[in-house]
């Protein structure tokens, strides 16, 4: 179990990052990619022990990332207002859209996808640790 997860976890994490970053190009997106990434961190804690899992991502970092994900989403919406568009608008506010089909395209969609992916991954990790550790 430990050897298998040590082999598999990096690939799962790379796949999760791929799904998040290619959310505007291929099926998938922020929620599914973040869930894959969070599941890899949970797999570490399940196959080793809770302390080793907590070394990968500490509780404080997880809750910071979690609040930061929503905050980044909101701030991206506010940046659109500052650029002169409506709240959460993309092309109309002047985010660089790039060539359709390339990795760095679609302006605010990529930024928001990354933020929501971070948020979903840290939500899964925080939920897991809080429920496993229980009352302390």
């Amino acid at each position: 179990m430990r050897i298998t997860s040590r082999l598999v976890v990096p690939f799962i994490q790379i796949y999760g990052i791929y799904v998040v970053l290619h959310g505007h190009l291929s099926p998938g997106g922020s929620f599914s990619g973040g869930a894959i990434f969070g599941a890899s961190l949970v797999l570490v804690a399940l196959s080793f022990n809770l302390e080793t899992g907590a070394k990968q991502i500490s509780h404080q970092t997880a809750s910071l990332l979690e609040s930061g994900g929503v905050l980044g989403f909101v701030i991206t919406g506010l940046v659109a207002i500052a650029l002169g568009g409506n709240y959460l608008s993309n092309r109309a506010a002047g985010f660089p859209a790039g060539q359709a089909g390339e990795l760095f395209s679609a302006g605010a969609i990529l930024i928001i996808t990354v933020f929501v992916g971070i948020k979903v991954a840290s939500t899964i990790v925080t939920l897991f640790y809080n429920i496993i550790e229980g009352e302390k």
Partner: protein
Amino acid sequence: MIYFLFAIIFVILTLFLRFFIGVEPRIILTFYLLGLIIFLFSFTVAEMPTFGSPVNPAFNEVPQRYLESGVAETGAINIVSSIIIDYRAFDTLGEATVLFVAIAAVIATIKAH
């Protein structure tokens, strides 16, 4: 006439279950309520428009606009992504907030004791 017959069978069945078999009234009521819910839900499903039919109310100008000019307006070739994060971004913001509130509630419930 047939409804009248059904009502009589219904009442007889209830009385039979209650007084000859001895089922508690609470359990009988529970099963009747479940039956009513199943009836209403299957009635709703039967009334739904056919999947993929061209006269569905969902086939209006809105998805046509998304399919025709979604790539030009958002720059994303994944149409689902362009809808959930560009056209319906406010809804996704609410979704992220729901996740946040859920985890805050879990932490408050577990750590409060």
